[in-house]
């Protein structure tokens, strides 16, 4: 079975994006007080993007040359999914646990494969506290914190 080239999928994503924006632009008024309105620019842009995405999909589909960079597989895919999942979980828990604790867990998880656990705990706790100190105390920016203030 012939599988689609990865580039085609990426082109399809652009196509869907531009079609959604195109349909949305139709609901905005094309003319305004000074002649042209808020719908004019988006309509033309998304229209062009639809055509360009189709061009891209077509040329990628037709091209004989093999993809120079295939879709991520194996370890690479695992690493990327792991990083992304860690970031999303981090986003989820940071309002509950506060910056220091969630950051420690986040760093511990990402460093787990490279350092032994006791060293890892040291690095994670140290780096989180250091970043907290720099941002919250020295630069006095607001960070998401737990009810104890860290």
């Amino acid at each position: 079975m012939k599988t689609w080239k990865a580039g085609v999928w990426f082109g399809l994503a652009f196509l869907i994006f531009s079609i959604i924006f195109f349909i949305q632009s139709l609901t905005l008024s094309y003319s305004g007080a000074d002649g042209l309105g808020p719908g004019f620019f988006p309509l033309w842009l998304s229209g062009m993007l639809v055509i360009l995405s189709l061009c891209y999909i077509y040329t990628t589909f037709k091209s004989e040359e093999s993809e120079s960079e295939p879709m991520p597989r194996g370890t690479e895919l695992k690493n990327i999914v792991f990083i992304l999942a860690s970031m999303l979980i981090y986003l989820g828990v940071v309002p509950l646990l506060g910056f220091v604790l969630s950051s420690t867990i986040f760093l511990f998880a990402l460093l787990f494969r490279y350092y032994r656990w006791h060293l890892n705990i040291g690095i994670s706790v140290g780096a989180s506290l250091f970043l907290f100190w720099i941002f919250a105390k020295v630069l006095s920016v607001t960070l998401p914190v737990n009810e104890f203030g860290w």
Partner: protein
Amino acid sequence: MESLSLLLHGFESALTLTNIIYCVIGVSIGMLVGILPGLGPVSGTALLIPVTFGMEPVTAIIMLSGIYYGSMYGGTITSVLINTPGESASVITCIDGHQLAKQGRAGTALGVAAIGSFIGGIVAVLGLTFLGPVLAEFGTRFGPPEYFTLMLLGLLTLVGLMGKSLVRGLIAAIFGLTLSLIGMDPASGAIRFTFGQQELLGGIDFTVLAIGLFGISEILSNAGNPTNMEKPAKIQGLFPKKEEWLPTSMSIGRGTILGFLIGLIPGSNAAISSLMSYSLEKKRAKDPSRFGKGAIEGVAGPETANNAHSGASLIPLFTLGLPSSPTIAVILGAFIVHGLTPGPALFTSNPDFIWAIIASMFIGNVVLLIFNLPLAGVWAKVALIPYQLLFPILLLVCCVGTYTINNSLWDVGMMVLFGVIGYFMKKFDFPIAATVLTFVLGAQLETSLIQSLAISENGLLFLFLRPISGTLSVLCILILILSIFSALKKKRAYLASDVEV
């Protein structure tokens, strides 16, 4: 001569203790950003914008531009010592720079690069000093049609002449423009493309987009390829041999002129300057075969060119308010955050500000020369931080930096999303720089086009009837035709378009 007295006045405000400290902090961060993999000047400057909220505008911009030109110096060190460019403008330096290091002449390569960078940087700032006011004067005559065509020209240069594929470049550019439309339309107040999300009412924050597309995507791309660290070469003896002085200084001279001129072109980037300088040096050499085996000119020319470029590319920002690269776009964003509108009026309305920034760049370049000549070895140690330790911390810093812009976790989520998009754009050779630049220019492009059409009686033809916009329009069409032609002929010269600086 008026420039000189204004410049002296600028030194007065740049030489306050606070400003000197932040200038040194800025160039140090620039060095770090240039050296560390996974963190480029775009994310570096973008991450620090929230930190500058409480500062004086002058101090803030002094620090942020320090990061920008400082990163040009930093990238060289890793190119020479461990054969890994810290940023794209130093890619070409790896070739001869690392060969020199293998021959035990790492010190010479770094010394020559530092001197060249310094000369290139200073000449570019001198150019800004004397050309800036003239260009700004010229810029005051620009109306909406001129601005529109100039922006269009810059964007077409970027996607038309420098990318791998015209279609991909255009998709990336229009994608950025479309994203910039999200939120409330400043002209009519209409709400566009928010899909009912409160958070999108104000549009997507530029910093979120830049950190995601450049910073996070870079870390994701590195996830697959473990980085092998080479042991850095030893540094000894910073100056070239007696007989190399003349050719080296010739290369530095040529690199300065080339980088400066290319830097003025909107849409060009520093990597183009260093690439072109390298090929120029190779052509001029009596014995081109030395190149690739440790020719000192192959380090001197490109390293000078990229610094001259980075200084010169601030000229369109200061005089016309137009960014020519993503990092400059971030600095433009910082101007706006601090209530300043870059453009021709800035020289007359805020001369103190402008001249203090320019003066600080002289100071910054001197600091960088000191960092890079006697202290190069210290910085080289930074390159030894293992990547597996670095990347989780960088991710965390990106999260914190993005969060602090609006104190919003939604922004951090958007950053992750743009990280994924940027990762795929890199995979499939879409120029990210085009997306980021059009995103910044989006609102301005739309307004200037609508305004042009409002004063026009014959539609788009109007753009061709005014002398300046007419010339620029013709240039745009020429570039478009040229790039379509080269795409059809498949004779595109591949010039890296997707570089950060």
